[in-house]
């Protein structure tokens, strides 16, 4: 592949042993393709040497998806970062997978368009990584997650073959293989170019900040707003500890003494948004909000969002390690599951913070701790098990947006029957029969017999 594009210096390999999550592995070689042909070449070379491979975007994933296991070749997509084609009329862009999410939006801003899925990590994460994890974001409440915005992808399969999945035509015939691929975390191959849908900017946007003296009241307001028939563009909740942390970083005017805040955004035509703002204000005040503020200037709005989007990154001010969960529960059970989360944290004597996409019931309990404290990881894992159980008991699912990766792999058999897992394994095999593409991710080891096992020794920090 040429000099400088394949690297295996000892220190460098260490830097690729994990993503932003906690699972750690070991890379054998790292390479940096610059075109889809390079990518295919690298995968074929790995095949020849019988080495598995794993795709990596920016490594902001939280589930260990980009963590190399089994001495994998790490294929880093950062140098495939060109925007290949923008069709402002058809509102489609073809991009290489290493393009950063926010860069894409920036590059089409002058056309009055944007790329809708906006994970909190959007300034740093890649479109390829977003496709890998089927990423969501605050504004996915009304716009839908990544899968709703990916039309097609040219994918290099586990054997190096290049295939096009999906297409720009709305009614393609046959199976929706594109749909299978989005969210497959690199286990079905690696996207070498991606066609995404661009969304027109809304004519009007209002951002509201509601503050509450109890978490329950905030959670009830969430259900209240939806029950009113309003689907805000975004509906986010932060509890007291995290609100104080982000305020310290951004100084956006978040109240320091609130028990919980809701950040709500509505978009549409002028008359419509103002009516919705009034309705939301009423619902929130009825349920005990102390105050509902509307951001006046664009700068105020940007600061509020900057705060929300910095939340996970800011926690090191409290303790050096975090374990971030990602579960989805029916909105009606939000209050109850949230209570249970705080109870579990108490039981394990852990500090928990909550910042999440309240509108779609996507909870992100965030445990903050010092990993060097003896016995702490056992408590963190125990709390994690408890949270997953509580989520499944409430009829929820294992992951909202961060993916399964290594982190949640062993919980899969709690959520699915042996038959279900077997069907998934066979689907995966159809894309990658030899098992070269990101092995040991998503599906439990030995999934075909449905047994449950922890990740291999040494994978966890």
């Amino acid at each position, binding site marked *: 592949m040429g000099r400088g594009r394949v690297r295996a*210096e*000892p*220190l*460098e390999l*260490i*830097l*690729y042993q*994990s993503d*932003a999550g906690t699972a750690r592995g070991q890379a054998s070689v790292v390479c*940096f393709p610059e075109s889809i042909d390079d990518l295919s070449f690298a995968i074929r070379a790995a095949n020849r040497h019988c080495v598995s491979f794993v795709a990596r975007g*920016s*490594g*902001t994933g939280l589930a260990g998806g980009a963590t190399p296991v089994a001495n994998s070749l790490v294929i*880093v997509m*950062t*140098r495939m*970062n060109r925007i290949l084609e923008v069709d402002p009329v058809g509102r489609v862009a073809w991009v290489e997978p*290493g393009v*950063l999410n*926010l*860069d894409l939006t*920036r590059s089409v801003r002058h056309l009055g368009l944007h790329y809708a899925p906006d994970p909190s*990590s959007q*300034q*740093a*994460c890649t479109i390829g990584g977003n496709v890998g994890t089927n990423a969501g974001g605050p504004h996915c409440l009304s716009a839908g997650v990544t899968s709703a915005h990916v039309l097609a992808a040219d994918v290099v399969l586990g054997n190096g073959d290049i295939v096009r999945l999906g297409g720009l035509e709305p009614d393609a015939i046959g199976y929706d293989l594109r749909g299978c691929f989005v969210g497959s975390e690199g286990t079905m191959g690696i996207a070498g170019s991606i066609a995404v849908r661009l969304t027109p900017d809304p004519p009007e946007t209002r951002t509201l900040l509601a503050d509450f003296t109890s978490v329950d009241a905030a959670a009830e307001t969430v259900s209240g707003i939806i029950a009113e028939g309003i689907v805000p563009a975004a509906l986010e909740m932060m509890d007291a500890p995290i609100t104080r942390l*982000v305020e310290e*970083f951004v100084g956006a005017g978040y109240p320091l003494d609130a028990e919980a805040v809701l950040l709500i955004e509505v978009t549409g035509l002028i008359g419509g948004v103002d009516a919705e703002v009034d309705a939301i204000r009423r619902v929130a005040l009825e349920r005990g909000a102390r105050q509902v503020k509307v951001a006046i200037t664009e700068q105020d709005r940007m600061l509020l969002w900057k705060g929300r989007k*910095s*939340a*996970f*990154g*800011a*926690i*090191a*001010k409290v303790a*050096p*390690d*975090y374990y971030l969960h990602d579960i989805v529960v029916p909105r009606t059970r939000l209050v109850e599951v949230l209570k249970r989360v705080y109870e579990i944290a108490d039981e394990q004597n852990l500090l928990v913070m909550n910042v999440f996409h309240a509108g779609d019931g996507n909870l992100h309990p965030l445990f903050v701790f*010092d990993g060097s404290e003896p016995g702490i990881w056992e408590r963190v894992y125990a709390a994690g098990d408890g949270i997953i159980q509580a989520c499944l008991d409430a009829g929820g699912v294992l992951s909202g947006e961060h993916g399964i990766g290594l982190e949640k792999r062993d919980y899969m058999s709690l959520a699915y029957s042996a038959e279900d897992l077997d069907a998934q394994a066979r689907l995966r095999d159809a894309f990658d029969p030899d098992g070269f593409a990101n092995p040991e991710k998503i599906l439990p080891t030995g999934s075909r017999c449905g047994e449950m096992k922890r990740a291999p020794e040494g994978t966890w920090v």
Partner: protein
Amino acid sequence: MTILGLNPDELAGCVGCGLCLPHCPTYRVTGLESASPRGRINAMRAVEGGAPISSEFTAILEACIQCRGCETACPSSVQYGHMAETAMVAIATRRPITRRVFDRILYRHVLPKHYVLLLGTWALVVAQRLHIVPKRFGVPPISTSSLRRSLSSDAFPTVFLYTGCVMDAWQRDVHRAAMKVMRAMGASVGLPGHGGSCCGALHVHAGRRSDAQRLAVAVVASMPGEIPVVVDSAGCGAALKDYGRLLGTPEAIAFSARVRDFTEWVVETGLPKMLSSNKTVVVQDPCHLRHVQHAETSVRTALSASYRLLETDDDALCCGAGGIYSITHPEIARQVRDRKVAAIRAAAGSDEVTVASANPGCAMFLSAAGLDVRHPAELLAAVIEEDNE
């Protein structure tokens, strides 16, 4: 004491979220984790954990421009700059002997000795006339008439203007412009006394902390009293403002509190009367003004009274100059600059553009790419002109 002498809490402060990556110029152009803040922090962690201080580790840290864009971007307030400077101390002491001799001459006998630097500058002027200075070094044409006339200090100064080493040799006209504005605003301008000619910023970045401390003591002594110390080089200003931490003495802390960037002082003192100009100016934020001094608003306040200002849409990413970085890492520096130039041109659209840069290093490096770059002091001096003469 750990191998690099890093504070374990500071090191643990990075949670590895990656939000800093797009704000790092070297990551932006290479796509390498090893050229990113997170990667550099993890490399330091690996060394503290027992990995050797190898040539690989040295190269990883040396490829950092020390722009500190990652600090502004980091929601956990990781003190990257401080850690990198500390790690550089360990690296500097382990260099091969030939390199140590070269560094010693540069850092001890050229930069701090003003006459040596001026002599070298004259030699450079001759070399430039003979066309034997490689273009990639980005050295601007030096004006001999400017070099011949020295600056003169006012009696009973009400404010000091810090003149620095390379800047005084290569960009003395900027000091002239600053003095003109300051005097027009009613100030009497003093210049530093003997020994205060080099701020030590380059020394800190190269891991020569004790050299830097010696220079800092001399700079503090060269501008006694309580009057403000105005600095028209963002890099030197950041260094002077950090003397409190570098020396840790009450005098140094008090001194640092007196330091102001030129435009900070202008805005605090009250803007002078200015004519309006029809020039369009794109503001370039020198990293050490924005990420270290956090003084980027005062440049805008000072200039917007007369000029139409435009902003780049690149999160104020570094321009690649970075002290002597553009000479030690010309290839990366050029790629970083290409991004910057593209962002500036995009901001200006079809307009004829002037770039405002408050740091001589950035100004020289960007001029070498063909842009018209002016110091804010020069831009201000141009619009108060008719009023006062």
